């Protein structure tokens, strides 16, 4: 496993604590409201045409623009799966390492600066929230889904912290973010079947829990059917996930897929956040989906930047592309923008 962390401009650690875009940060001391953009972090999956992960890319291979304004990458990290030849249990996911892309620069000054950054130090440790549907939709597949989730949690390496939440009409924070995977498995097996399914409400609360975390953060939703009890729409959840840099993966069953609105929402909501949606026909498919998510998480590139001055107080579009010889053929998956979030 190779970890490559790079700070480009030798930023002092304290700089990270400063608002980067004060122009777009209306401040009002009387109200204690702040509108801050501290740092924009992107988790990026790079795959070839067969879906294999592409490793070995360097920061200079990425070009980031925000509202067409070029951005300077301030930190860069390659996922812990880089260089792994191992694939998933099912042997479906292969890894391609680009020898031609070169190695990480060995400038000791940059590396020192990098390791001094709080985000960078822990960036490789993903925070993963599992959100499990315990609504009455789940009754038939409840235990098989639990098997798949426990398998997934066991398979997460020690670098990841996991939280386990369940939802029906209400959210249950069964186990907060922890490295105690036994505790998580125990929480999975302590769930109780509930009633209606308020997926989007619960996902919103989970995104908010994930929002303040640094480093890669992802929510893995296991849903067995359409939402029938939420008052917030998927649009708002997707936007918050994008704005807070939280990746959403959704594993669902055919019951949700048969509802076209849910199928579209699951697919699009996860895509815009940089994640993926899976529709499993049976519990074996569920296990494969979990395996795929695990692979995705360990192969993500993580880069960040401080936004350049930008008068736009609304939605800011992010575009990332690969530059360099033969790199345009690869596919990128990451969030495509964000909205300034009020910090209170």
């Amino acid at each position, binding site marked *: 496993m190779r970890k490559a962390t790079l700070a480009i401009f030798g930023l002092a650690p304290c700089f990270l604590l400063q608002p980067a875009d004060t122009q777009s940060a209306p401040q009002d001391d*009387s*109200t*204690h*409201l*702040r509108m801050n953009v501290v740092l924009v972090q992107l988790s990026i999956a790079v795959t070839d045409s067969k879906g294999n992960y592409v490793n070995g890319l360097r920061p200079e291979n990425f070009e980031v623009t925000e509202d067409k304004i070029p951005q300077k990458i301030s930190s860069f990290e390659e996922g812990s799966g880089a260089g792994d030849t191992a694939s998933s249990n099912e042997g479906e996911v292969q890894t391609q390492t680009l020898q031609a892309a070169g190695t990480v620069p060995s400038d000791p000054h940059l590396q020192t600066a990098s390791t001094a950054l709080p985000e960078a130090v822990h960036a490789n440790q993903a925070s993963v929230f599992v959100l499990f549907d315990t609504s009455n939709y789940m009754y*038939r597949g*409840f*235990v098989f889904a*639990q*098997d798949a989730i*426990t*398998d997934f949690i*066991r398979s997460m390496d020690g670098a990841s912290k996991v939280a386990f939440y369940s939802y*029906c*009409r*209400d*959210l*249950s*924070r069964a186990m907060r973010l922890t490295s105690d995977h*036994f505790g998580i*498995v*125990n929480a999975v097996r*302590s*769930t*109780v*079947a*509930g009633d209606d399914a*308020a997926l*989007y*409400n619960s996902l*919103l*609360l989970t995104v908010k829990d994930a929002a303040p975390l640094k480093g890669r953060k992802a929510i893995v939703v296991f849903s067995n059917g*359409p*939402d*029938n009890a*939420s*008052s*917030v*729409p*998927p*649009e*708002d959840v*997707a*936007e*918050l996930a*994008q704005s807070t840099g939280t990746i959403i993966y959704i594993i669902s069953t055919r019951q949700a897929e048969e509802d*076209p*609105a849910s199928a*579209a*929402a699951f697919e*699009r*909501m996860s895509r*815009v956040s940089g994640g993926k949606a899976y529709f499993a026909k049976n519990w074996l498919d569920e296990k494969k989906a979990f395996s795929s998510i695990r692979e995705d998480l360990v192969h993500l590139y993580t880069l960040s930047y401080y936004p350049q001055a930008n008068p736009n*107080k*609304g*939605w800011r579009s992010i575009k990332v592309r690969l530059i360099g010889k033969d790199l345009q053929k690869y596919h990128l998956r990451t969030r495509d*923008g964000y909205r300034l979030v*009020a*910090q*209170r």
Partner: protein
Amino acid sequence: MRFPRRQILQAMCLGLGVCSALHAPALSQANSPSASAGPASDSERYIVIPGPLRSFLRMAGISQEVSPEQVLPMLARNVSLYGFSGGNPKEYLILLDRYVHQAKDLQRLADPQGVIRISGCRDANELLATLGYRIEKGCGRRDAALVTANSERAFLTIDSGFPLSALEQALQKDGPFEHPFSGTTVPVLLTDAEWVSASKWRRNASDNLLDVLLHDQDLDRLYSAMAKFDSATRLALDESPGLKRLAQSAAIVDLYGGQICVKSGQVIVPGEADKAWQEIAGESPHAPGKFVTSLLSKDGGWLAAYFDALSRLNASQQVHFTEGSRLKRFYNVYRSTALRTDASRGVYPRNGDLLILLSSVKWLPDGDVSIPGDVAVWDAIFTQMAKSREVRPWLGRNHEWNTSGRLLETLVASSNYRSEAGPIQVFLLLSAIDAARSADHQLSGEAEKLVAHRYAHFSHWFPIFAEFPALDDSAITKFVAAADKIDSISNTNLKANALGAFQADVGIWQILARQHEIPDDQLNSSWLAVVQPFTGVGSSAQLFDAARSALQGTLRAASGDPNISQDQIVDLLAGPVHQDRDSQRVHQHVANRIRAVLEDQRLASLDSLFGLYDGLNQVAHGSTSGSSLLPLAESLREFEMPRPIFTGNERSSWAPIIYSSRHAELQVRTDLTRILKSPASPAQLEAARGQLTPFLRDTLVGLNYAYYEPPGAEVLHNNPLFVRSHDFTSVSVQGVTDIWDEPRLVGVGVTAGGGAYLLGSLADLPYALAMTEEDFIVPKNVQALIWREVVPNLLVGATLPRWWNVSPNELHVAALYQKSGEELLTASANNQELRAKVSTILSDRIPPVRLEQISNRLDSKRDVKELVSTIPPADLFFLAYAFREKYPDLADQTGPASKQLSALCSKDPANSSWQRLSVDFGVPHPSFLVTNSSALLMTKTLSSYGGNAGRLFAESWDSNNLYWARIADEMGYSPVELNLLVPELTRNMITNIFASNTDDWPALQRAMVQTGEEFRNGKIARETAFAAEPAEQTQNKSPNQELKR
């Protein structure tokens, strides 16, 4: 676990009666039928539930916090409510039954000590098979895992909370595993054998009560009902008419039998009117078996419903209704309309409206009924109502209303009319308005007729006139005129904007009036200034003028300046600012919360809107150039719709009716910069001004939403279309015509619908917002869910009342009353004479079975402190207050709090009165009192009711704010800090609620006390605690420390 019969024997030795205040002191159970029935053996008084109680409670949907005595009654209640559909078992019951069988299988694997033990991999197979699991990757390996082998069994294993992970861990090490799995003994009401023999369901001889409860719905209802009786009554009814007979009327017993009480060989009847009741029932109350049989079976249960409603009244009210021939006359008219329906249909009692009516009737000194207005007015009102085909049948047979008695008869008859706008509601409202007004300021006949005539349309708005008695008859007339004018607008968009702006302006007036920021002598004139501008609205620009003028009318009265900025308006809404630091800090916090909602809803600022509007006017008059307004026009364009996930076509096909963002989409398309950049005609400039009206409506509406933000709100902060989507004219749902009704939440669970929104008016907005936000509160207990029937009311009780003008003395007195109530109860453990007095007072508040439990605990003289913690603060308050009223000479003799209270009451009687403290620390009871004014009810905690009375149960719980006030007093908080503490403590309390069914009020008491303890111990989030810190410290805190949502 084993529970001896001591509790039953104790009940038989009680020195206190528990049925009725009128009987309380003299009663004893020595003469009860049970005395001669002979005790049953211990083995018949309990049964064994297979497996651990915790697992069984999980599967049965029962709170883990219940006592063993409550297990079977709760089980019976849940099975009767959720277990059957058309006589067939539903999923809940199927799973519970399967679990019981699986638990029995597991119990067979346990050793004689009741422990399931395996030594390791070699003897795990049978256990795994029973649990529905198998081991994968080889037992004894570190990566071994348990996976599902039999999904049906595995589901039960998980759902019942079997420690599967511990078993798995043991098998990974090939090590031993132990798990206690002995059965749990729980007490039975009466005896196991009696219930089994009373059941129609029977499979084999070994079946016990648990098997019966899992299969016999009638017996479930009866068992649940019998748990509501005190032990003497239960034993008497068991003897006669007996369980089998009672089971034939199980639904009636369940719904209306809870107040039946047998003492000294007779049924205690309301008003002690034995003869009158005998005449109606056809049997004497002195023959309990026959009387109860007749009561339950007569007229399809409606006599029982009548008896139940009367029994719930306090003693003095009962006497009024049983005087002369009233009891029979009223029953006859009640029955005449009741027979159209079935008293036992459905799961809720159907006598809620009757109870509200009977509770609210006031009496004149001569014994006659007090009615608002005169009989002639009511004759006119009813004559008008009788013209309606729908209402006429419910008015009874006699259509002459020339006496107050006839009027009351008609109201009793109409209590079966299940409408929110029936005669009873009109009567209650008019009574409430007149009761709030002074004697020389009562409603005129014309005003009464107007209110009655228009009640169906404005039923949710007229209560304002009961809340603010300073509003005179012209205020009512002008309101109706303005509302009618708006109703007559034909342009749908203009009408929607007019409805929103008008109601929002009224809402702002209401908030400031309620916070006493509008001087009393200006209430009426400012009201007129709010409503009158809307009588001349014909265009969008006119509507803008009207909405602004109305707002200015309120602001002028509240601040003296009609043109204050939005920030200053928010400051007004955030409550009056006093000189002290606490007040200023709390005020700032409340204002910040309002601003946060406005910000998150991305609403245009009033300052920009008014500036732009005035600027456009000036452009039209040539006094300024359009370019100077461009920055303001640009600011309107900052609003963006959320990033779409669905296309327009997809929304049309997947959410064809619900999607309601057209109003917001229209705003996105509004671009005034074009008109400002080029020469425009006066007409174009007026049209441009009109385009600002939707923005103004939304900001005004947003101010109302923000003010009533429930604690823990998420929709208000994360769905920026929520305010804009409010559908005032019901364009999104066809067929809804009652646009002035309370708002309902629409679009829940519609994926492509763009989010839920409110449809209807702004009346009762706090409740609608509470319903919207309640499910974002996360319960602490895994098995618990947010209690839909109750939580919105709890939230309203925390957001609508405010405590800006409560004095420290009032706070302290509220605490002392509760402590004095505790002292009285504690002292009564050793003083039989005092106990009799206490019991008599409490019998007006507490049902017989609960009184019996209290008496038992006091008799035992153990855990009295714990007992006291189970008594709702409102009951303690009532006890201390009533005792003080009734026995002033004894009032200060039971302890230091009582003594201190006496001193304070003497020193400051006005601020120690029930009336004053009721306003300070009560909650709104719109169903009971037809107003949103805060008050404490003088009534027993009720059951869940259906129909119009659906909120009765939740409204009858008004202990929270009293309790929070006590805690605040004890911890040294100033009263103004209740404005922060109460919402936060209430939210925390809601997370702690672990209820088993729809009228589980002890769950509320437990959650409230637990929350109080958590707060005292510093376990509640710091944002509540910061309020006690000096202002300098708070100002130095970061925003994140200070504001946490």
